[in-house]
């Protein structure tokens, strides 16, 4: 046994001999409770650490903008939404939503004023400007540094009021034409109810339950989002842009042909040079993987080529007649779902690729191993992209060549998958179905030529389907938020670039920004998109931002680039509303999970199960249940190992959507309803 003592080098300075001889220096043994002081000191150190991380986060006021409450899930949608963000149900009449949202009158400014009084007690902009001239002032100063030459920014109180009232006015002018869609709503509803007989129906209905507590008080801050006034250049020529950017995620089960399809599209649209393609073909042949030639355009790393599996999200660009498309090819393999999450959070729309082959489609639906209960990645991905807020989907039924372009097979898949997609909250009208073959180039950028397909399919080809997608809305009226997906360092030039999609706001060369976490100020040196320099990037754009004056070691995926006056909050303890997916093992108090939010990932545990939510009403049906089972929705508290950049879903969707994973599966999706220990 004696030999065991020297096992491994020990970290603390206890290199003294182990004999019973006490000649060593024992300075520690000085007096009573010396070590308790030590403990104190280390405690203090820890505090020091935390405080050094303290960030001057501007916690926002309870921003209760003009909302309408969904009749089905009671989710508070923004005024501009025609359908419910969560469940896709159409908005009801203006009158009703007006009532729900704090009893606003049906007309005139009086109503608007009362809304303001109701929704922002004590936080009326007028007051801010009058009573706290300092904060208004500092805001003014800061925004001047952000963008000089902004003439709109005068210090006049009157103008401030005007600014703050702007959205209210918008609300009033919103047509109440939605009344007519009431009829549609009924249809939509009964449609859903009638078709979702299968078990996954529960998911749909519970997704609808996820609503927000409107009346929870929230701390106030000196500067709230409402006070943000976008600078002039941000809005300039927003509409006469030649091509709009569309972030398109390609998702689906492993081996369904995602990489081949993306590679093929790029090739057909002339984005891959002949030389490159030849090289890929040659190399693929040499390695005996001829069929992967197109996939290699996407799977660039040696490891991926070797294994024939996409591991990380590949980004590529092509132009259609309507969009500048950013293709995010994601990994389908179960182990790489976290990478897929990171990629797909940027998506405006998605192509769900399914393999039409007998057996393969089924594996994508029910999991890879026959007989073992589980969810295939076709289902998991579909659920995930929907909960990212993606509501437009193109289902590419690939490898139709293998099934002889059979209509029967197509119909079967469409029927099976259609039910599931509806249960995830996709509306039939936002799902396009395209049978195709990436291998034989059928129905990709031009309509199919194979008679076996043209005989029964006259719909859109893939490219047309892409062009028919609704353009993503771009929110430039809010302060800049750009979650960092990736950081690229070029050693030679010592440059560092952050890649990602702008969720809100805009930037241009010279803009001052702040990088969270760490609250580091930085300046935008230049902006690139697909290796082309561009002058401005606005909400919705997927770009690489080359930053200046930032400690590149502190720039990490999972961080967020913000407007200097509106840094996003950080928190390590959150209240969530979640929907538990098809899990075998129930979620318990103390369950360990991986917490995913935008591009951040953190180890976490369920600290508390606050209450179970009723499937039908969305109201708490039981407090402190002992565990959560599949398909239940609930309010829980999670404790993260480290704080992440996060925002309540009601304030920023992109920073408020979460995914919990455990044992290699996504166990729950949800939204952030409260930051419990927001780090300031």
């Amino acid at each position: 046994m004696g030999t065991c003592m020297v096992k491994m080098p020990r970290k603390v300075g206890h290199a003294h001999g182990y004999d019973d001889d006490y000649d060593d220096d024992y300075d520690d043994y000085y007096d009573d409770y010396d070590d308790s002081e030590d403990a104190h000191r280390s405690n203090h150190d820890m505090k020091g650490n935390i405080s050094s991380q303290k960030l001057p986060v501007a916690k926002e006021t309870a921003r209760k903008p003009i909302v309408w409450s969904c009749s089905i899930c009671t989710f508070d949608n923004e005024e501009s939404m025609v359908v419910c963000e969560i469940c896709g149900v159409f908005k009801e009449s203006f009158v009703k939503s007006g009532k729900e949202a704090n009893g606003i009158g049906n007309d005139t400014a009086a109503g608007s004023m009362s809304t303001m009084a109701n929704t922002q007690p004590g936080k009326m902009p007028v007051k801010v400007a009058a009573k706290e001239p300092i904060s208004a002032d500092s805001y003014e100063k800061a925004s001047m540094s952000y963008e000089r030459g902004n003439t709109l920014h005068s210090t006049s109180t009157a103008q401030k009021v005007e600014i703050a009232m702007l959205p209210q006015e918008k609300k009033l002018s919103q047509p109440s034409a939605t009344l007519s869609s009431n009829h549609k709503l009924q249809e939509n509803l009964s449609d859903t109810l009638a078709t979702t007989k299968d078990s996954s129906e529960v998911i749909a209905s519970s997704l609808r339950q996820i609503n927000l507590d409107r009346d929870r008080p929230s701390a106030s801050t000196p500067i709230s989002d409402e006070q943000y006034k976008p600078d002039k250049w941000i809005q300039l020529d927003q509409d006469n842009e030649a091509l709009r950017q569309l972030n398109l995620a390609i998702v689906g089960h492993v081996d369904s042909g995602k990489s081949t399809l993306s590679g093929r599209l790029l090739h057909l649209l002339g984005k891959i040079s002949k030389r490159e393609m030849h090289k890929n073909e040659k190399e693929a042949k040499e390695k005996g993987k001829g069929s992967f030639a197109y996939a290699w355009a996407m799977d660039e790393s040696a490891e991926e080529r070797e294994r024939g599996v996409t591991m990380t999200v590949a980004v590529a660009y092509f132009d259609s007649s309507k969009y500048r498309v950013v293709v995010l090819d994601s990994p389908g393999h179960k182990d790489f779902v976290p990478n897929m999450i990171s990629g797909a959070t940027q998506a405006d729309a998605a192509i769900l690729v399914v393999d039409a082959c007998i057996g393969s489609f089924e594996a994508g639906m029910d999991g890879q191993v026959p007989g073992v209960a589980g969810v295939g990645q076709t289902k998991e991905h579909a659920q995930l992209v929907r909960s990212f807020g993606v509501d437009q989907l193109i289902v590419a039924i690939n490898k139709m060549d293998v099934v002889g372009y059979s209509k029967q097979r197509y119909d079967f898949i469409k029927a099976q998958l259609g039910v599931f997609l509806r249960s995830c909250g996709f509306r039939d009208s936002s799902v396009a179905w395209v049978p195709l073959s990436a291998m034989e180039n059928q129905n990709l950028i031009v309509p199919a030529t194979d008679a076996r397909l043209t005989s029964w399919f006259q719909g859109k080809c893939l490219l047309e389907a892409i062009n028919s997608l609704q353009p993503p809305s771009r929110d430039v009226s809010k302060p800049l938020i750009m979650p960092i997906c990736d950081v690229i360092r070029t050693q030679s030039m010592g440059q560092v670039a952050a890649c990602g999609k702008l969720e809100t706001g805009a930037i241009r060369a010279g803009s001052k920004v702040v990088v969270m976490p760490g609250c580091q100020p930085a300046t935008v040196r230049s902006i690139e998109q697909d290796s082309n320099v561009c002058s401005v990037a606005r909400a919705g754009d997927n770009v690489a931002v080359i930053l200046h004056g930032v400690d590149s070691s502190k720039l990490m995926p999972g961080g967020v680039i913000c407007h200097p006056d509106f840094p996003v909050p950080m928190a390590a303890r959150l209240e969530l509303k979640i929907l538990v997916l098809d899990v075998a093992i129930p979620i318990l108090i103390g369950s360990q999970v991986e917490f995913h939010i935008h591009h951040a990932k953190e180890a976490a545990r369920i600290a508390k199960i606050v209450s179970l939510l009723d499937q039908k009403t969305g109201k708490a049906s039981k407090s402190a249940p002992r565990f959560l089972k599949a398909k239940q929705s609930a309010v829980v508290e999670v404790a993260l190992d480290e704080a992440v950049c996060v925002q309540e879903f009601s304030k920023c969707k992109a920073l408020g959507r979460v995914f919990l994973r455990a044992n290699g599966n996504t166990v729950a999706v949800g939204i952030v309803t409260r930051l419990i220990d927001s780090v300031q």
Partner: protein
Amino acid sequence: MQLIWKNLVPDGPGTVKLKPVEDDDMWHAYNLICPGDTVQATTVRKVLREMASGGRDAERVKLKLEIRVEAVDYDKEGSVLRVRGKNITENEHVKIGQFHTLELELHRPFVISKDIWDSIARDILHQASDPAASADLSVILMQEGLAQLFLIGRSITTVRSRIETSIPRKHGPAIAGYESALKKFFENVLQAWLKHIDFSIVRCVVIASPGFTKDQFRDYLFLEAQRRDLRAVIENKSRIILAHATSGYKHSLKDVLESPNVMNLIKDTKAAQEVRALKDFFTMLSNDSSRACYGPRHVEFANDRMAVETLLITDNLFRNADIAERQRYVHLVESVKDSGGTVHIFSSMHVSGEQLEQLTGIAALLRFPLPELDDLEM
């Protein structure tokens, strides 16, 4: 642990002299020593002397002190136990009632006296001095950009090294950056390996990760071992095994221990038994939730109805400073045993113990369903 002598009455007072000889023993000692016990050990204390010249001189003296324990601190990094309390031995340098901290270390004997040697304390003593083979096993748990090197002993798991590197995702021309970053990461892991893994101590080394990182690293390791002639790696290739893990975070260590090829190697150990017991609990909870419960309130509810078949409990519940609380759990354990149930006392220094600790520290599998549990708030 060497038991030098023992003089105790079960469930009565007694004294034992022990000498810890391996890292694990410090953990046993930590679980054994409770507030209220007395501990005697040799220690060093600095004392001030008035000199004839009128000046003062500080001198270190070695003394034997016995203290009544008020608090115990475990330093897992250094395998040191700090026992704080008031002196109870008459001594020329330290007054009775004065505070002192004893530092217990490997190979330094100490004497512990308790008023009551309850069944848990006797169990620890028994386990600690049981010379069953230790489960020394090294696990390198990794995912792209993060690697942790663990040493799993009989009752403790320690992190020997943690390597974190940011690896860029691929973006066209930056692909070269991705691959060189990955290489550098692997090199760092290899360095940690060379520093911390000693095949004369560990039975085997498990490389675990989601995806292919583990294969990639193993390839790198073997290639470099050839190139640099790393004998320790080359000669022990057969003792290096791969396992799947769902992530690179510590809690995935349980996946690794559960995987059949690893389980085979360690099945007789405490760590493996704990992994299995917890797995059984989750299986029961998934299949027949009314026959499993957790949390003190629910477990006691079940025990009152003689329903507990297997009790899972972490050692730190017995370490409670509140003696009544400790008694509560001691009684629970005894009562489960009396009614024919099995008790697993988990080491909170192993992953499964850590996991159980998160789940309130106590759980049970039941003999018969108790649907009433659903109506009882946690």
